[in-house]
Structure formats: structure tokens, C-alpha cells
């Protein structure tokens, strides 16, 4: 392509519309089931962002875990709730609090980003400077004792604990 910047901008704008629009519709749609579907659109946009950031592994994981598992779980929960199945409209009285909280969260993140805009955390690297196979370096960093092995193991322990807890709660005896 002659003009990679233009293509990137178009992709960025489309993905932003998908993500923000999907997120807006999740909050706005009164039909809970449709809300879950809009969440899919939103998460798909995020997966697209991961692809643009040269992180295909995270994109695939985003699709697999969030779209394939979590949204399916939400949809199943909605379907199993008979009351919601009957009345397809859902109302929420807590939206002013939600609005305030999300505004605060937005301001905090924006503030931090503005503060850190000069730090090394946010320096942009060209895609050519990234390691050739990001998947390999990601995998290695997860099992390297000097890098992220401890957090990785802790996270897996946490998940195992949560799973055992779920089994204990769900057990009927």
C-alpha cells in the first residue's frame, strides 16, 4: 500500500466506532440480551486494536476468552433467568451513579496519561523495532524467573482457588 498511515487511520476510526459505539449501546439498550450482543461488538473492536498494535496473540485470546467464553456465559445467565426472559425490557435506577463513576474513572485515566506522556512507559516503538515473533518472546517472558513467572503462577493459583470455590458452592449435598 502506498499510504500506510491513511489505512491505519481508517482502521483506527472504524475500530474506535465499533468499540465506543458497542460500549454505548451496551449501556443504552434496554433489552438485556441485545446488550450482551453489543458487548460482543465492543470486544471485537478491542481485539482489532490488539491486531493494530502488533499483538495477534492478545487479539486471539481476546476473541477466545472474552467473546467465546465470557459473553457466552453472560448470555447463558440471561437465558437462565426466567424473569428476564419474560420481560425483555430491563431498567436500571442506578445510572446516575454509574455515569458519575465512569466520568471519574475517565478523568483519572486521562490525568495519568497526561502526566506520563513523557515517561518511557508511553514511548512509541515502530513495528519494525519489535521482536520478530512477539508470541515467542511473550511465552518466554511468562516462564522466565527474572520476568513474569511469579505473577503468572500467582494468577494461576488464584484461578484454581476460584474454580475450587465455585465447585464447593455449586455442590449439592
Amino acid at each position, binding site marked *: 500500500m502506498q499510504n500506510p498511515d491513511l489505512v491505519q487511520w481508517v482502521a483506527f476510526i472504524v475500530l474506535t466506532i465499533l468499540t465506543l459505539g458497542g460500549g454505548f449501546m451496551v449501556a443504552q439498550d434496554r433489552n438485556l440480551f441485545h446488550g450482551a450482543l453489543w458487548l460482543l461488538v465492543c470486544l471485537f473492536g478491542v481485539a482489532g486494536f490488539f491486531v493494530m498494535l502488533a499483538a495477534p496473540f492478545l487479539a486471539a485470546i481476546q476473541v477466545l476468552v472474552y467473546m467465546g467464553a465470557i459473553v457466552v456465559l453472560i*448470555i447463558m445467565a440471561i437465558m437462565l433467568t426466567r424473569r428476564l426472559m419474560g420481560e425483555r425490557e430491563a431498567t436500571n435506577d442506578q445510572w446516575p451513579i454509574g455515569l458519575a463513576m465512569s466520568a471519574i474513572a475517565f478523568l483519572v485515566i486521562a490525568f495519568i496519561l497526561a502526566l506520563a506522556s513523557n515517561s518511557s512507559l508511553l514511548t512509541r516503538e515502530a513495528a519494525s523495532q519489535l521482536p520478530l515473533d512477539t508470541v515467542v518472546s511473550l511465552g518466554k517472558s511468562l516462564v522466565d524467573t527474572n520476568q513474569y513467572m511469579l505473577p503468572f503462577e500467582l494468577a494461576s493459583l488464584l484461578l484454581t482457588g476460584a474454580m475450587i470455590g465455585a465447585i464447593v458452592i455449586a455442590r449439592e449435598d
Partner: protein
Amino acid sequence: MIEWLTGQGWNKDLATFVALLLGVIVVSSFGLVWIIFSIWLERKVAGRIQDRIGPNRTGPYGLFQTFADIGKLLIKEDITPEGADTFVYNIAPLLSVVAVVLIWSVVPFSNIWVGADLNVGALYFTAVGSFGTLAILLAGWSSNNKYALLGAFRVTAQLISYEVPMVLSILVPVLLAGTMSMQGIVLNQHIWYVLAVPIAAGIFFTSSLAEVGRSPFDLIEAESELVAGFNIEYSGMKFGMFYAAEFIHAFTICVLTAVLFFGGWRGPGALLEGAAGGLIGFGYLMLKSIALYFVVMLIRNTVPRVRIDQMMAFNWKFLVPLSLVNVLVVAFLANPSVFGVDYVYHQNQAEQATGLMSLIYQVLGPGVIAELPRTVALLIANIAMWWGTSEILHRYAGIERRKVQDLVTEPPEFSPKGQQTTTAPAGR
């Protein structure tokens, strides 16, 4: 292609775009065209197995039967049930076809032809495969029908459960090849992985069958229990799309099994330069896939459907533990410090070898020699694992058999406990 178009005076961007578009169309329509043939094949084979002739009126050998079916589906009335969620109802069949066709984009057809050689290919196809589950859920919910909803629940439970052993068994070829790219897995597969890790291949094939909803796991459309399952309200081509998606998926899992465990397009002459090697490799891949598809058809027409509780128990109590142990064992043995594969060393050896060794290297190729120790070690480990598994199964079956015998010899009084065992936790 791009060079030819620019040679004709096309703009370079436009030529790239058109070439890419044509590639996308070819890859995505290949599966769709293939099922026209595969449906005919399946009906013929099913006919033979059931001592019938199968379709034989439309065209030579009934080859055009599928076209007649498509025509029928197209002119049928398109019904949307009352109270249905129209948009979701209409998008579900599309999504189910898209989920399957997307898988084809990472299938390496030959050494030169591959839609997109993603470096996360193996992960990609499990990810897009989960859209199929979503499509079924949407179809079941939006139809506004209790049977459809129940069918969708059941299918979702089945698909989510069987995804676990499937993903765990995909890990095994990924571990052996050291890459998640599908083309990379084929390139590093000098000896078919099915010879090294038959258990993983078996688990992948079985759980894929369940993912597709093929017999003996075809509870998706258990006519006797659920009328038709999640797609009960669909008519015409929308029903046809679910049907088509199932058929493409059934063939797709055969292609994936061939790629992951049977060497993909590998075979004598498949590494030739240019289109000749490409065609030969494609031929090998199709040959392997069709052979596997024949196994799928045989299973479909000879094995009875399992009950939902049996299916769940089979997954969670047999496939998942076995695949977990399998991944652990393979990860240990395929570790570079245990049975590493050094292609470069053997490449050098092949160039320096003389006499008998040189002949061996020439006949087998350095890649095969390099992978030989690991393959043998893994095969022995697999046999040991299978022996252990069958010992455990044997003991378990003995206990169960004694239970049944006790029941037969002394008729049970209906205690609450006895009832609990007979009314199995169905659908959980």
C-alpha cells in the same frame, strides 16, 4: 498475479487489492463448493452402509441431487416465528457459516498456498470456532421456542465442554513443532505427529466430532427428544445455512486433523518448486482429509447416539484428565534438554556423511532422522499412558459391572439413594 496485473497497466494498489480479494474469494468459497460434492458423497456412502442405493435420479450417479436440494431450499417459504427477535434470528445462520469459513483462512493448502500464515494460527481457529457456539445460542434464543432454547442450552454445554480437551490436544502439535503457525506445524512435521502422539490425535478427532455435533455426539439434533433442536423454527435457506455450516465444519475438522497430525500437504514431491509442488501438496492434503472424512462417515452411520449425561461424563471424567496428563508428558519429553530436535546438526551431518550413513540420510532425509528419537520416545510414552488408562478403565468398569449384577440378582427397593443413581444428573 500482482505482477501480471501491473504489467497490464493497472495501478499497483488496485492490483494488490484485486489479487488479495481473489485469494479471499477462492479460499472462502472452496469450502462452500466442496460441500456440494461432500453432501452427495455422504448420502451415497450412507446409502451403501444402510444397504440402499442413495441418490441416483438427478444426473449421472445422482451427482446433481444437491443442486436440486439447494433449489428446493431457495424457493421454500421463509418463515419468521411470531415473537422472534428478527435481527438476531436472521444473523444467526450467517454467523454459523462465517465461523466455519473463517477457519479456512489459516489452512495451509500446500507449501506455497496458504490464506494467511498467522503466527497464532492454531489459537486463531479455536477462537473463531467459538463463534459457532454463539450462533447456536442466538438461534435458540431468538426463535422464541422452548424446544429451540432447550436445544441451544444443550449444544452450548456440549460445545463448551468439548472445547477443553480439543484445545489441550492442539497444544501437543504446537509443542512438538515449536510454533503456532499452521504452515510452521506442517513444515516441522517430518514424521507424522500421529505416530508420535496417537493419544492426542485421537482426543482431537473425538472432541472435534463433538464440536461439529456429528454422531455419536449429534445431540444437537436429537429428533426423538428435542424435535429438531436449536434450528427448529428455521426454514428454507436459513435452515440450509445451518446444515451447510455443519457439513463444512465436518470436513474442516478432517482437514485440521490432517494438518496437525497427518503431515498436511507433506508427501513425496510436495516440496517441488512452483505450481507443480503446490498441486501435488494440495492433492496429498485432500487425499488425507477425504480418508479422515470417510472415517467420520463410517462413525456417523454405525455408532448410536449417546445420552447427554454419558457424553458429559465421557468428556469431564475421561477426555479432560487424559489430555491433561498427555500435555504434561509431551511437554516433558519434547523439552529440548530431554529429546530435543536439532535440524541444523543433522543437516550438517547429512552433508558430511559417507557410505551407508549418507544413503540413509538421502533416503529418509535429515529431518526424519532428527525427529526419530523424539518420536520413538513419545510413542513409548503414549503406549504406557494408554496402558495405564485402560487399567483404570478396567477397574472402574469392573466396579460398575458388579453394581449392575447386584441390581439384577436382587431387585432394588426404591430407596432415595438408589433413585439418585438412576436419575442421572442429566443436562448438568
